[in-house]
């Protein structure tokens, strides 16, 4: 009778302690995950920045005026008005 009466409070206090520890653990895990999320967000921002820069770089390098100039000056190309037939045979 006396032992039985002690059992319930004992079990409850153990449960309380256990759940308290679980709360601590969960809280810790939560913070770790939030931290990771934050890092990944930073990474995402960085990659977005890089993407914008790369797009810009590509657009600058492939600008029509630049390609036009390179084709004419460095590669010696011309833009034929009409059909031009050029053969290596006379």
């Amino acid at each position, binding site marked *: 009778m006396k032992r039985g009466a002690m059992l319930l409070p004992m079990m409850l206090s153990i449960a309380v302690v256990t759940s308290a520890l679980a709360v601590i653990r969960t809280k810790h895990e*939560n913070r770790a995950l939030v931290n990771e999320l*934050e890092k990944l967000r930073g990474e995402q921002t960085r990659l977005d920045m890089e993407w*914008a820069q790369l797009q810009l770089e590509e*657009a600058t390098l492939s600008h*029509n005026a630049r390609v036009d100039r390179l084709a004419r000056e460095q590669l010696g190309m011309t833009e034929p008005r009409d059909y031009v037939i050029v053969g290596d045979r006379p």
Partner: protein
Amino acid sequence: MSGARPNPVAEPVAQWRRWLVLGVLSLGAATVVGRAFQLQVLERDFLRQEGNKRHIRTMLIPAHRGAVTDRRGEPLALSAPVESLWAVPSALLDSPQHVTALAKLLNKNPRGFEKFLEQRKDRKFVYISDPLPPADAQRALSLKAPGVFSEPAYARYYPAGEVAGQLVGFCGRDGDGLEGIEKSQETLLSGKAGSRRVIRDRQGRVVDDTLESVAAASGKDVQLTIDLRIQYLAYRELKAAVAENKAKGGLIVVADSTTGEILAVASQPGFNPNNPPERRSSGTRNRAIVDSFEPGSTVKPLLVAQALELGVFQPTSMIDTNPGTYKVGALTVRDVHPQGVVDLAKMLAKSSNVGAAKVGLTIGPEAVWNGYQRFGLGEPVYSGFPGEVNPLLRHYSEWGQIATATASYGYGLSVNALHLVRAYAALANDGLMPHLRLVQNEQATPPQRAVSAQTARNVRKMLEGVVSPDGTGIRAAIPGYRVSAKTGTVRKVSETGGYHGDKHQSVFIGMVPAEHPRLVGLVMIDEPGAGAYYGGLVAGPVFSRVMQGAARQLQIPPDDMPPPPPRTMVQQPPAPIVQVAQHGSLPPPSPEQAR
């Protein structure tokens, strides 16, 4: 009794000692409770606020501004990250060697930079650089100069630069669209920055963000109907023509006649939107949309279409334009070269003012006005571009004989370039006039019928005569294609009233291929100053080069191919092979490969 000693313990203590102890204890308890009450109840809000201030932060989630792209996804306007350096002047001035190093890195005069800081010594925040690419900003920060920080931001870049400058427009310093598409599509492009409240630890790491947050809404990308390849071609040829003709300016529009999508719209003088000082120049005007002009001879085909539609004239009708002048009240209509008795096709090919005036007066002011109205010359284009100029077409009830005659050859009314393009798109599209669009995926407005398909075909057939050895526009011919077009040489209105004798606008408008047109193009050169000023001579060649390139890039099949050459030269490949002379050592590919 004698052995009994008095019990020392039993000595009763004075009552006051008990009260004293109790009193001291309860005083202590009261103090604790009181303090707790003060902290928990009285100062609770203040303290919580102070606590939050130290570890709860509201972080801004930046929202991107959307990009503007052409129809193929090439970027025309992009936001890219930049960093602006700022400094606390007093902190930075404490280490002179850093000031010098920083000035060198920022391409500034060290002495001047120091002076700049000295003058602002009592401030806590001074920008010390323009927005820099992140890599450059990092280099400056790696000097570890005291009191120097960077502030991330987004800057707007326009990769196409001057090529699409007036169309795309630009943004102001705070990122709002000020001109062009940037302005008209502001609601779509601009994002809305979000925010979230987070708990940070001592190192500034976010440890918890379960508090309220407002998600950032990024701006949407806007896709234009422009094709950057054609836009570049149009820009290049227009610029060259304006320079060659020593003109004041010019504009060019290329549109898809079936869908009404504008493929290119450029004007000169231009400006580079990436260079802020240039943004105040007159080059920012998109003259094709915000400026109007008198259309001149280019309305004659619309008049003829109306005359045919009413049945008053037939394609075979003859008009006597002798003797090259025609008196209408006080006005004398003149032709540059008298043409004698001509049919409608010849009248258009030679651009006879006398003929047009006679057609106009025959069908009467109401019919002329109605015809122009049906071709949309009295209605805005609704392009959505900011500052689009409204057309000016007075009601026919205000027209006398003279106004009717002048309206017949395109004076006394004013339109912008898009009006003419739209009207010609109706001719090109078998009488169905499309709604002109600049932005892709805009809600499509169904086309309106301007004239019957038969009339449109007849007029197109007549306009082929313009680009023939007999017409005014032979310089606009495109090898391999039949072209329907019309020239226009408009005298400009002078400031004093009346018309300038020597200031002209050379206009050329046409469609390709004539049989089933896909493209409508308009070229206008403003005040050519190098001698020639006829539309066919000045604007025609530009039209020819741009439309040929556009047709090639859009893979529009030629409709006027000469018959294949006789197969006597077996050595020569029959298919047209385009090769560059310097690389002639390569064997020409066989016809199978070429196909």
